[in-house]
């Protein structure tokens, strides 16, 4: 049943992320994007299915049974995604700061809703 918890967790992260993504303040969008990226990372990670106690670190290099190890491919994908996600957050943060400095507002459109 861990799968169900995992699925609901991804759902909650997605819903919170999407909600914030649609908000008008830039800070909300940043937090939203971070939450959404957690969700997406977990989602991609989940592609390899859930296995407990089977990290893809080979113990016996001579006789290798792939069934004993968790799927390494989604993990490799997510690992770079985590770092790139940091870069994206940084870039977005700086863009929002610059936009706030230029337009005097932290609304995503650079002007307050009328």
């Amino acid at each position: 049943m861990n799968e169900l918890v995992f699925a609901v967790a991804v759902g909650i992260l997605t819903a919170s992320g999407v909600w914030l993504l649609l908000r008008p303040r830039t800070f909300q969008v940043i937090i939203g994007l971070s939450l959404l990226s957690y969700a997406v990372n977990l989602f991609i990670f989940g592609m390899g299915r859930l296995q407990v106690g089977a990290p893809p670190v080979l113990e016996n290099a001579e006789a290798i049974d792939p069934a004993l190890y968790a799927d390494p491919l989604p993990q490799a994908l997510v690992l770079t995604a985590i770092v790139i996600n940091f870069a994206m957050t940084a870039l977005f943060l700086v863009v929002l700061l610059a936009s706030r400095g230029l337009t005097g507002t932290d609304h995503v459109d650079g002007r307050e809703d009328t």
Partner: protein
Amino acid sequence: MSSGMPLLAIVVLPFIGSLVATFLRQDARNGAAFLAGTIAFCGAVLTAAQYPAVGNGRVLHAGIEWIPSLGLNFTLRMDGYTWLFTMLVTGIGFLVALYARYYMSPADPVPRFFAFLLAFMGAMLGIVLSGNLIQLVFFWELTSLFSFLLIGYWHHNASARDGARMALTVTATGGLCLLVGVLLIGHIVGSYDLDKVLASGDLVRGSDLYLPTLILVLLGALTKSAQFPFHFWLPHAMAAPTPVSAYLHSATMVKAGVFLLTLLWPVLSGTEAWFYIVVSAGLCTLLLGSYAAIFQQDLKGLLAYSTISHLGLITLLLGLGSPLAAVAAIFHTINHATFKASLFMAAGIIDHESGTRDIRRLSGLFRYMPITATLAMVAAAAMAGVPLLNGFLSKEMFFAEAAAFHVDSLLDQSLPYFAMLFSAFSVTYSLRFIHGVFFGPPAKDLPRIPHEPPHWMRFPIELLVLVCLLVGILPAMTIKPFLSAAVHAVLGPETPYYSLAVWHGFNEPLLMSLIALTGGIILYWLLQGYLAKGIEGPPLMRRLKGQRIFERLLVELSWRWARSLERLLGTQRLQPQLRLLVAFAVVASLWPLYRQGLEAGSRPATALDPAFLMLWIVGGICAIGAAYQAKFHRLAAMVLLGGAGLVTCITFVWFSAPDLAITQLLVEIVTTVLILLGLRWLPKRIETAGEDVTMGTQARVRRMRDLMLALAAGIGMSLIVYAMLTRPLPDTISRYFIENAYSEGGGRNVVNVILVDFRGFDTFGEIVVLAVVAITVFSLLRRFRPAPESVDAPEQQQLQDAYDTARPDRAVGDTLADYLTIPSVIMQWLFPVIIVVAIYLFLRGHDLPGGGFAAGVTMSIALILQYMAGGTRWIEARLRIRPIRWMGLGLLCAVSTGIGAWVFGYPFLTSYFQYVELPAIGKVPAATALLFDFGVFSVVVGATVLILIALAHQSLRTPRAARPGIPAPPPVALKEEA
């Protein structure tokens, strides 16, 4: 091939000339005209030289290979028909160049005019001589483009701009249709080669795609030839300088449409669809054009409508589908070009010498310019179809064909009567042109006293009128061989018997001619009174203006629709866009769910671990809390976000992904520092009590909608994830990675081996992205201007400084320096420890969880901690960190490792490994992948540190700018690097 060079030269020379003309001086009127005239003349001579071959029925080819594998080559071909057309384009081009030399004012930038004219000539020759349909369409659009430039040559004139835009919009749209039509032809025939297409008429006509192909090609041809209902652009194109009208609207641009119809006649014609569409379009155009021409007050307007109607005549003839009608069409194409070009030039002379083209103001010009008047009269008579002139011959052929039987229908039966009506109308407007301008009482209030033009300006008209006369009186001795070659090229074995004689005896067509001639004269006499009133526009159809419909359509399309589309999807506002994006993603993922079903799969479910459930109860609360607090309590939201991140991190550990957990944990730390640094520059937002009550209904609805969308997305993700997790894992490439990680990559940590070895190239791309982002952040912050209310030092710092100023024994900044002393000492002591951890993570990465990414982030945390502990100035006075060099070194290291593989003859980024025995440490894995991983490490350190430091520096810069009294601190390392 030997015949290739002249063909190439004919097409390429005008373009070269055009290029040369653009480099001439503004006032080089003679030079440019000479250049244009010479090139056109050379073209005509080169073309004439091809006649011996072409006249014998040979088809000349020339070509340059471009993409032979796709059947796309630059090919030129010339047969009897295209020879005739080339002759027309170059010959009349030469005369127009000569004429334009005198017509254009020295005040205009004349070289530009000739540059456009030559380029247009080249494009037109390209259409005529193309041996490939795609290439033909290319030149076709090129003529639209250059005609736009030529019509809009006097761009200070609003009507010229409008006319040019309209011509371009209509003809270029038609050109797009033509392109699609041609692609369809290519699809049906399997080749774009004109020879092959011409030989596959039955295949095309029998195809299911015939009708769409036909309609698309016709849309192209009919827009170009200004056929009803697309005729309206031509009168507006009369804002062009008259030489342009004489060239484009007699012999070239508008003739391109009928040229194409004639060229593809063997392929497309002969079906009912062809007959009905083309004949109706031609008939409407012919009648409307000739009727409207009678009532024009502008000389060029009259000629424009007459051109429309004569093109309609040619279209109609082509539409009839009988070989004899095609002969008539080809013949009339030539005749019309000669008399219409000369008439346009005559109108230009009248305009030039008297200052107006308004028929109401012009009168009695015969006494001022008798020679021009006589020439114009002959040309107009040819237009009216008076015997002994070329127009008469092709009109007789038309009458004969109109009277003949084609398809049993009302349209066919009524043709002879319409033909006579058209002919009578053309007699009327020709009479109006001559009688209204040259006869009657002398004009009184002309802007200039009219006189004969310079002789060389009149020369082109003389020559053309001579051609009209010669062809009209002695057809068998002049035009016959050329016409015969052209007709044979188009019709091949279908070529019918036709006779080119002035006198065929007293027969049906002659009777029709006589009726039309008298009818036209009587009509003109009857209309005298009405025409004298000088009312603008033709009666009965004054309200029916194609132009107005066109403009309304344009306004709708380019203004109203575009505006509402922009309102709906525009990039001005982010929220609606994101909303659309999310909604689209939700809907798009519903489709596979609908097909695959959502029931749980067959994979055995694991037992529920209560601790895991508890973990995610906390995680879920954190996520929802962050979403709830992000507006008013940013710090709280950030802490909650960190909570969700930690839970994610534990999940990774739980399900066997230690590498991810390490990286996630470390990145979580730097992200928190990053956002903390950014928080300071955001505006304060204070929750006012009762905001929810004052919130408008609209905002409520919007929130409700967003909540629905968010829930839909979340539930959808949950369902997909659950469906996925309960299905067995298919056999993927992962098996290969696990089995070969050690034997091929020399590492036990499969994730790391994938990153630095198997998929090293992807990782290389990722670190490049990271470096690019860091530099972007850095350069964005160099020009950073904070909002005015954020410029002051933070509240806490202000209080600390106030305390320092109040106490005489303390200097300003002491309290700030002492703040959190113990943690900062610990942080300073931790510096070497963290570096060791980073090195440890890096070295073990190939075999155990760790690696370049994790080590890099750890290293950057070590550096950032020093900034936090000692303050920016303190640390930078002691330690020079050069993040950009770190990044450069890393990229260099990664690339050179990759290139190193080339040296040994392996593909880029192939790794090599072996164990090295180090004293005191023991066996150490030494794969070249480690070098690559070092590159990753170095880039990650550089990028992370650069981003964080650049942001941290902002609080140093701004107070300095705000308070100029304080001496500037020593330049920081970052600045030097930049």
